[in-house]
């Protein structure tokens, strides 16, 4: 099947307006007859379900958590971008678009990104109207800060809890629709398959995670808003429950999986403390606004951080990238940290960490505060006290979190940080309308591949999730459903439902029947190690080939030796996890295949074979300016389809932040 992205014709800045002006509509009385299934209730899912409910569709939402409010969007800390130009610093839709395409290392679809930039401003309006308490200035107007990879201040934030506040806004809108009867909410439910009838997605098989029973749900269309698959690495900043299952089932039913190898490694996370570790914790990128990153200049440095004089410190980001300094994009910052640690300059007991130091910022803010109070020659101690207060106001909750986890006080000594898996740019391939290659099956938010190319800029994930849910899908879904108004609800006794449920049931039975000796967690950990070591921050052909063999072997072992205690028809967290890990074991292989196939470096995908003399990622536009969309062809077999990337506006160049 040839990939048709269905990008509207015309000038870039007119495409979306034109599309909206000509798109098919569904009249209100017909909307009432159309059912839509939304899987996942994070920013994309909750905003989509709420908006569609408001429009009059009959919506069902599904989430595996006990409430939609717990979706992992809630953990996003730093902020959300929008081209508001409230700071009068030259921002515009075009600049946001440009920065995002460039930040994504020229591997995203221009038209989608442009639309994202266009609707960004409306997101902020919508959220403020919902009562989302963004940070404000004393004049009562909204405050902004800057984020990595850009030179304007366009990031809106609510302390270090922006994702939480945005999600609770969308969750409120969703609950309102539940109260109005437009949305039915299924919590503690996990989607285990998509049901295809006559080539169209017509429903899902879901498992009630409390009773363990399988359920069939019909929908005229199915929306997957199920987030990213970073947990394939076992250790990531994702929530414990985050998984690829819904997207993977859709993939196996025909939806192409695009750019699976594009993973974002976030530079500022709390380093690993031991083998027991179950997850990694992010320290918001916003910290790089004020923190300076450094390692000792000397190998085998033994002094404590505070005892190392300035001259013996290597502020390597400022040294290598003077224009952007500590605010280079995430992929660049992560690789630079890895480079220093690999070279032996790492700090901490594991030597796999770098310092993120606030001492200078504390002094700087302290002097400003003292100056405000009329004291232009403050004593050092006084500036430190005042400065700490400012830092506390800006990042208090993050500093507290750091102290809880590490037992160290970051006001007194520099934080230790190290990169960790954070976000996956890859996902189900979608066209301009966010429809996958399976008709009637849509994919929104992190779960799709479309907007971030090979590297996502900070504060863009929240923007994309909400753009897709609030402002894109309400239009594009209508274009499909307008032709479905004659389709009556299909009873779930239809044989396709029957078959899908049976298949799901068989798989569960099979898994439970293995009764082996090794726990699910162990398999997950082992998979994570393979992925991190061989398909992580730096990749090469040899490692990737080995990884594929190892993953296949591990998968075989899983299916012959996994031990899942408990019963099927009950609340059984181990069984839930087993299904997810089984899918990760398949996805991992595809990620390696994709990474191997893409013999260039771009964004978060760094192939050691393809780098500049200075060790920067080197793209190969001639050969790889395309989206890899993989079609599932059965066990360990995929067929590659390419969507060629045409750049009308932004001309790809070597990305430079120097």
């Amino acid at each position, binding site marked *: 099947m040839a990939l048709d992205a269905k990008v509207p014709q015309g000038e870039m800045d007119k495409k979306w307006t034109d599309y909206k002006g000509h798109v098919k509509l569904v009249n209100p009385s017909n909307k009432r007859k159309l059912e839509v299934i939304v899987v996942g209730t994070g920013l994309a899912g909750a905003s989509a379900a709420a908006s569609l409910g408001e429009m009059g569709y009959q919506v069902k939402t599904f989430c595996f958590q006990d409430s939609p409010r717990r979706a*992992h969007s809630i953990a996003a800390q730093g902020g959300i971008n929008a081209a508001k130009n409230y700071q009068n610093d030259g921002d515009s839709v075009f600049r946001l678009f440009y920065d995002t395409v460039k930040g994504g290392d020229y591997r995203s679809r221009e038209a989608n990104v442009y639309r994202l930039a266009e609707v960004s401003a409306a997101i902020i*309006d919508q959220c403020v109207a919902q009562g989302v308490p963004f940070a*404000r200035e004393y004049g009562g107007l909204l405050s902004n800060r800057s984020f990595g990879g850009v030179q304007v201040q366009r990031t809106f934030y*609510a302390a270090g809890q922006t994702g939480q506040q945005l999600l609770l806004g969308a969750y409120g809108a969703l609950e309102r629709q539940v109260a109005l009867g437009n949305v039915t909410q299924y919590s503690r439910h996990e989607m285990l398959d998509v049901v295809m009838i006559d080539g169209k997605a017509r429903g899902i098989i879901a498992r009630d995670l409390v009773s363990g029973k399988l359920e069939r749900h019909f929908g005229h269309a199915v929306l997957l808003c199920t987030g990213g698959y970073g947990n394939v690495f076992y250790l990531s900043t994702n929530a414990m429950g985050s998984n690829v299952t819904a997207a993977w089932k859709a993939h196996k039913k025909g939806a192409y999986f695009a750019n699976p190898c594009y993973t974002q490694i976030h530079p500022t996370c709390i380093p690993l403390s031991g083998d027991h570790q179950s*997850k990694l914790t992010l320290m918001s990128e916003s910290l790089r606004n004020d923190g300076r990153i450094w390692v000792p200049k000397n190998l085998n440095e033994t002094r404590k951080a505070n005892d190392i004089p300035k001259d013996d410190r290597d502020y390597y980001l400022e040294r290598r990238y003077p224009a952007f300094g500590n605010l280079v994009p995430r992929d660049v910052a992560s690789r630079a940290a890895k480079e220093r640690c690999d070279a032996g300059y790492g700090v901490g007991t594991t030597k796999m960490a770098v310092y993120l130091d606030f001492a200078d910022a504390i002094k700087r803010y302290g002097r400003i505060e003292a100056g405000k109070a009329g004291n232009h020659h403050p004593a050092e101690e006084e500036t430190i006290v005042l400065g700490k207060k400012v830092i506390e106001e800006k990042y208090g909750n993050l500093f507290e979190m750091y102290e809880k986890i590490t037992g160290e006080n970051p006001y007194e000594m520099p934080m230790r940080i190290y990169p960790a898996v954070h976000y996956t740019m890859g996902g189900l391939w979608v066209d301009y309308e966010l429809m996958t290659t399976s008709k009637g099956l849509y994919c929104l938010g992190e779960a799709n591949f479309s907007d971030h190319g090979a590297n996502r800029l900070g504060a863009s994930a929240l923007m994309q999730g909400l753009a897709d849910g609030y402002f894109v899908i309400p239009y594009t879904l209508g274009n499909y459903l307008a032709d479905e108004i004659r389709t009556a609800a299909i009873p779930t006794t239809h044989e396709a439902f029957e078959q899908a449920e049976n298949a799901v049931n068989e798989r569960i039975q099979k898994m439970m029947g293995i009764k082996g000796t090794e726990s699910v967690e162990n398999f997950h950990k082992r998979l994570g190690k393979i992925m991190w070591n061989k398909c992580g921050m730096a990749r090469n052909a040899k490692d990737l080939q080995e990884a594929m063999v190892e993953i296949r072997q591990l998968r075989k072992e899983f299916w012959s030796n996994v031990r899942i205690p408990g019963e099927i028809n009950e609340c059984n967290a181990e069984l839930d996890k087993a299904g997810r890990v089984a899918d990760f074991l398949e996805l991992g292989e595809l990620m390696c295949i994709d990474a191997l196939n893409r013999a260039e470096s771009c964004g978060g995908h760094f192939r050691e074979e393809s780098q500049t003399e200075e060790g920067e990622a080197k793209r190969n536009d001639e050969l790889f300016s395309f989206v890899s969309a993989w079609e599932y062809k059965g066990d360990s077999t995929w067929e590659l389809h390419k969507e060629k990337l045409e750049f009308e506006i932004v001309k790809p160049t070597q990305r430079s932040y120097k």
Partner: protein
Amino acid sequence: MEHYNMNLTLKVWKQKNADSKGKFETFKVSDISSEMSFLEMFDVLNEKLIEEGKEPIAFDHDCREGICGACSMYIDGQPHGPWAKNTTCQLHMRAFHDGDTIVVEPWRSKAFPVIKDLMVDRAAFDRIIQAGGYVSVNTGNAVDANSLPIDKSDADAAFAAAACIGCGACVAACKNSSAMLFVSAKVAQLSLLPQGEPERRTRVLNMVTQMDKEGFGNCSNTYACEAECPKGISVLNIARMNREYMHAGLSADEK
């Protein structure tokens, strides 16, 4: 920070499902690092149980960074354990010592029935939000975000209330299983903002009515909720809600 290992005895509530009667069971764990989080210690225990062919202990958890509100354990007589302003997932084993016995119970409230072991059903919170914990603004109806300046101190107070993670520790801590802190946090957030103004009266009335229906107890101002809230939500929000409720209830049109 000095690292150390410890052996612990855990007394944990085990309950097969909502209909069965539960009981405490005792477990031993050894070589627990002070660097582990409390839930990682449970992971270790669960792995051990699986290895022994037993059923692991069920508990709610997800983000493990203190923000999703899923984790909910009553640890040694306190929701989320001994650290102040903290969630179970962020509690680290540094808080305990070698040889300690730790008692772990689920949240106890009629409105939060136990699902299994340490998992409880907090859908009551969803239903309270459904009763009015939002601003009724359809997508696309918003005016420019800066068209309405908001006093910074009001915005900050609204944010402080909005920081609630809906974990239910307030209910668990309260001797009356009252949900007033949770409900008041949302009511206060929206009553502090001009966006919440049009529905100000109906919101508080409906949310409180739903709260009462769910079977939570009454607030008797012990302020245990504030002390145990992982986000430090202030009880002044409760006073604010009382005020809102009185104003709304006594000025509504009905007789």
